[in-house]
């Protein structure tokens, strides 16, 4: 859901960066409290994810380094630091430490009821905040400068969105793990984007896609041995994306190709008709028959185009001869003036 905003804000890889950046937070929270309580670990992850995000932002605005460099930098450095802490923790005499690395790859099967409740609550919270600030989010998304002139506190809204994205990522970490979280954030939104141009529909669709890939992924992974849940969910989501890329009615590759072919056919039809018009013009009687052979050395001509012209009642065929009908002649004469409007 929140992924829609990330995709539209061209911050897609932010999810990847945050999910890596959350690792040191988890480790530090564990070091401080010494207990493996999910909530404290999540708060740690949240804080370090936020620090990572804002550091990325300040690198991009304050120096000439580009956003991709900043992302890669923060991602790898935070993750490395997290690894350092994790290995450091492993050497500590604390029996509790086992299982911390579960956060790396995620294991949906290890979730307990309280975790699920926690997720449900946070999701609900996201929903409420999103509905209340819907207008602000939308306007900031598409025209940040305009928002500022309208007097909205853009910084506040920006931080709000970012915080919720981070929150969603951190929660998702437990389920699908660090590496695959970015796909969970992106894939449903990218798929939804192909089907609609409206933000609200897109968010709604993304939520549905996300939920479906979650359900299907879990079902597939449960039906077979040795199949971890996270990767399967991600693959299902990727299939959704591929499907959307190819089959979406207005932006999809398939329909684009069909449209290209259709346009080419139309053009050929028009060319043939124009050529016929050109010949017919030389006679006083427009319905004067001409030999089909005449058309043969014209490149736009095929049997099927001629057939189509007949179907449209522009041309009559009599044995080996063709002649333009009245409507055909008029259409051909108006072809060039009309073409621009017709093609729209």
């Amino acid at each position: 859901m929140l992924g829609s905003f990330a995709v539209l804000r061209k911050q897609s890889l932010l999810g990847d960066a945050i999910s890596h950046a959350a690792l040191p937070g988890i480790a530090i929270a564990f070091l401080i409290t010494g207990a493996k309580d999910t909530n404290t670990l999540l708060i740690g992850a949240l804080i370090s994810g936020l620090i990572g995000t804002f550091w990325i932002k300040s690198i991009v605005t304050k120096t000439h380094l580009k956003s991709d460099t900043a992302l890669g930098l923060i991602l790898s450095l935070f993750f490395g630091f997290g690894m350092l802490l994790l290995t450091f923790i492993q050497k500590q005499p604390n029996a509790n430490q086992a299982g911390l690395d579960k956060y790396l790859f995620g294991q949906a099967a290890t979730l307990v009821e309280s975790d699920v409740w926690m997720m449900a609550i946070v999701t609900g919270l996201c929903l409420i905040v999103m509905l209340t600030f819907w207008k602000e989010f939308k306007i900031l998304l598409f025209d940040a400068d305009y928002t500022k002139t309208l007097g909205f506190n853009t910084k506040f809204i920006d931080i709000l969105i970012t915080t919720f994205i981070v929150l969603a990522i951190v929660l998702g970490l437990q389920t699908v793990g660090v590496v695959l979280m970015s796909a969970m954030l992106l894939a449903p939104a990218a798929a939804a984007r192909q089907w609609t141009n409206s933000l609200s529909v897109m968010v709604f669709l993304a939520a549905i896609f996300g939920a479906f890939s979650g359900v299907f992924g879990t079902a597939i992974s449960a039906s077979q041995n040795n199949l971890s849940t996270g990767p399967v969910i991600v693959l299902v989501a990727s299939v959704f994306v591929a499907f959307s890329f190819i089959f979406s009615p207005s932006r999809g590759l398939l329909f684009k190709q069909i449209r290209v072919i259709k346009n080419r056919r139309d053009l050929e039809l028009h060319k043939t008709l124009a050529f016929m018009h050109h010949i017919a013009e030389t006679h006083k009687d427009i319905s004067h028959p001409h030999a089909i052979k005449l058309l043969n050395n014209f490149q736009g001509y095929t049997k099927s185009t001629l057939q189509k012209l007949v179907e449209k009642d522009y041309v009559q065929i009599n044995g080996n001869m063709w002649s333009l009908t009245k409507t055909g002649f008029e259409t051909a004469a108006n072809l060039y003036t009309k073409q621009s409007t017709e093609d729209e």
Partner: protein
Amino acid sequence: MSSAQIEIQLIASIVAVACAIPGTFLVLRKMAMISDAISHSILPGIVVGFFITQDLNSPVLILLAAFTGIITVVLVEYIQKTGLVKEDTAIGLVFPALFSIGVILIAKNANDVHLDVDAVLLGELAFAPFDRLLIGGTDVGPKSLWVVGTILLVTISLLILFFKELKVSTFDKGLAASLGFSPAIIHYGLMSISSITTVGAFDAVGAILVVALMIAPAATAYLLTTDLKKMLALAIGFGIFSAIFGYWVAHWLDASIAGSISTVLGLVFLLVYLFAPSKGIIAVMYREKQQQTEVSLLTFLLHLKNHDELEERHVNHLNEHINWQKVRAQTVLDLALKNNMIHIEKNIVSLTKKGDEFTSKAIDYIMTNEDAQIEDMKDDFFLFRG
């Protein structure tokens, strides 16, 4: 220092150098995230290669993995070309999918062999010296040393051979194309080198550290210089320093070497980010403040020039009229005095000859909209900067 320790440091330094070179170009070409994508998506390549060769260090495996890396790049570019999503989204879609395939392949087929996700992602440098390469029964050093050494040699020779081409195509694609070398070939060449380096290094230091070693030294060097050769040298220097220093930190903390190397890289970057002479945060903030004061000074001088009346130039009036805070007004006044642009007599401020000249010139530049020249002019007139 035992020989194993020396070998570890040697491997780490070689990897650092091998990563810093393509890394510099990736950062300059704004493709840093591609390295992250490659480092993840080589996983299925490694897994398939491992099924075929049953040997984690064989060249076939490295080639296959590098090939997957290139597939990633091609896929990303294809998706981006359809215009359906932006480039970063394309990257974010491709590599998790490939990575998932890799993870599933491992989980389904390779559960019992020595190959797991942690090893690929995180690596373990400490074990590198124990995996020796034997030629005719004699021990010639750790395997990974030879692997990364070869990669480094290839990278360096390619760099020297194609330095000019790389440079031109990085900074001016159009010029490169018109000079007759195809940017596409250079692009894919660079991508192949990055993939091979990533693959060669993953087993020694892990995929994440590869990304860190590629991006962090280059980004740090980029903050310090704008000269390509200097940037390369600096990036290599930072890489080696972090590799060796990181090793000792890890030794002292008894923690993961890869993790501590990237932590050191992070610290180096943080230091440079804060204190770099012209592009660091502190320098930027200082410059912003300096410019603010100087702009105020200019406004102040303009005000003086516009008003000949004594009462308009009285200190108290100026305080009221311009309505600056006291501290700021004092700073501006001090600066103007220090630079001999005004003199104060009985609380009446007036421009000196120099101040007058300065102000007229500044007006000229502002009117003709050549704001850039004001900086040069400031150098001519100022004895002390704001």
